[in-house]
């Protein structure tokens, strides 16, 4: 069996003694695979992503490209698994986009020229002009900020890209643009979202989290065809009543 890009085994996490956020989650991602992580608000999607990058220390095993996450291997894991936050502003913390995008490479010891060249490539790959590198983050639109934050992760050439609600505050054109960018990336992707349309466009497989438990690991097509389970999992909520009436429920 080929080495998994990501292997998660019996992952559990609690925020407090009586608050279990994740319970015995197990799944794998193969290299280049795109998987949607679906679930209603509060299901534990973001918590799972934070556990994968080692910011939250969970029970169970997380292995990226064969390297198990444990004290001492965090840097190695994070170099291979990039996480795009739900709020891109949280990842744009330097005065200019250039400083943000080159941050990871410089921290890893790359030379200035190498970092500058990689930054230019990364910013172009997300559909932004090179001039964007000289701008302050607050000078970008929300869609541009999301792309700039993405560039700051892609510049590290990660094996896996995890995205937390990537279509938040994006208009239809922005979503399309983002989908096109992600479709061109060779890395494996784990996309936490409740935007079913976006997930369908991008991913062939879906993991469904409900109340911290993995309730489904299936093909996207099969999941979307199963309207009963979609409603049961809280992934859709019809705005029509059963007798076809619309309006306030």
């Amino acid at each position: 069996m080929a080495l998994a890009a990501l292997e998660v085994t019996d992952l559990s996490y609690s925020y407090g003694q009586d608050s279990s956020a994740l319970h015995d989650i197990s799944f794998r991602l193969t290299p280049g695979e795109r998987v949607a992580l679906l679930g209603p608000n509060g299901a534990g999607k973001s918590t799972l992503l934070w556990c994968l990058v080692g910011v939250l220390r969970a029970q169970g095993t997380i292995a990226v490209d064969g390297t198990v996450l444990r004290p001492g291997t965090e840097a190695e894991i994070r170099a291979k698994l990039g996480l795009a936050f739900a709020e891109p502003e949280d990842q744009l913390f330097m005065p200019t986009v250039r400083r943000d995008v080159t941050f990871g490479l410089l921290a890893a010891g790359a030379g200035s020229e190498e970092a500058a060249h990689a930054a230019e490539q990364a910013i172009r790959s997300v559909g932004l002009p090179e001039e964007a590198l000289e701008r302050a983050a607050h000078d970008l639109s929300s869609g541009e900020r999301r792309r700039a934050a993405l560039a700051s992760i892609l510049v590290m050439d990660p094996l896996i890209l995890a995205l937390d609600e990537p279509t938040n505050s994006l208009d239809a054109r922005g979503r399309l643009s983002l989908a096109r960018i992600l479709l061109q990336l060779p890395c494996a992707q784990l996309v936490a979202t409740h935007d079913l349309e976006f997930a369908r466009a991008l991913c062939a497989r879906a993991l469904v989290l409900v109340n911290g438990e993995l309730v489904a690991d299936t093909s996207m097509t099969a999941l979307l065809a199963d309207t009963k389970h979609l409603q049961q999992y809280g992934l859709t909520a019809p705005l029509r009543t059963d007798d076809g009436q619309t309006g306030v429920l």
Partner: protein
Amino acid sequence: MPHHLDLYVKRESALHRLDPRAKMLAAVGFVAAVLLAPTRPPWPTGALLLLLIGAAVLARLPARLVCRRMLSLVVVIGMPFLLSRLGGEATRAAGEQFAVRSLLVAAAFLVLMASTRAVVLLEVAERLPLVSVFGQLGEFILRGADLLAEEVVRTNRAWVLRAPSATLKVRLTGLSQASMSLLARAAARSERVGAAMVLRGFQGKLPMATPTPLPWSHLLAGLLFALISLGLAGVGRWR
């Protein structure tokens, strides 16, 4: 759009194009000269003033802008000077020196900051051995100011829509509650930003690109300005 807080005045000028390190060298030399130069006779400080006016002209700074910014110092400098006139000879002399030197140094900083972006100055500071931590923190504060300014604008718009004719008491209560909420959100945000930094490989110090070499011509220009200033002050002091 530049950062929300910055005294930079966008112009196409030789001074704007001059490397910020050369400008800082020139500024340090000028400030040292101002502190060295006597105020009696007045010609050394007068010459320094002319030198500075030359720099401001080179930077194509609007005279009205310069005067307006200097006007804000009238009270801060004027009051101690006027009070010193009530004292003895030593106090009056000290007051005079205080006023002249304060004005010259303030004007020098004004020209420097009007011709150099704040973020560039902070990057230079970040590379200097003793002050690098100040530069690092300054960069975070600058970014934080951008974020908070946006939040304040949003909150203010919400207030205008929600309570356009609120009394002062209601507004003040709302302002204090909004400020507390803003601070609490800022604190929560810092948790995520800290995580973002570590995920990108932060180990305790902000990574920096190696600086571009300082062009000789720029270094010479900065050095020349500093040396001329110090020369004028030196001649004035020891003549």
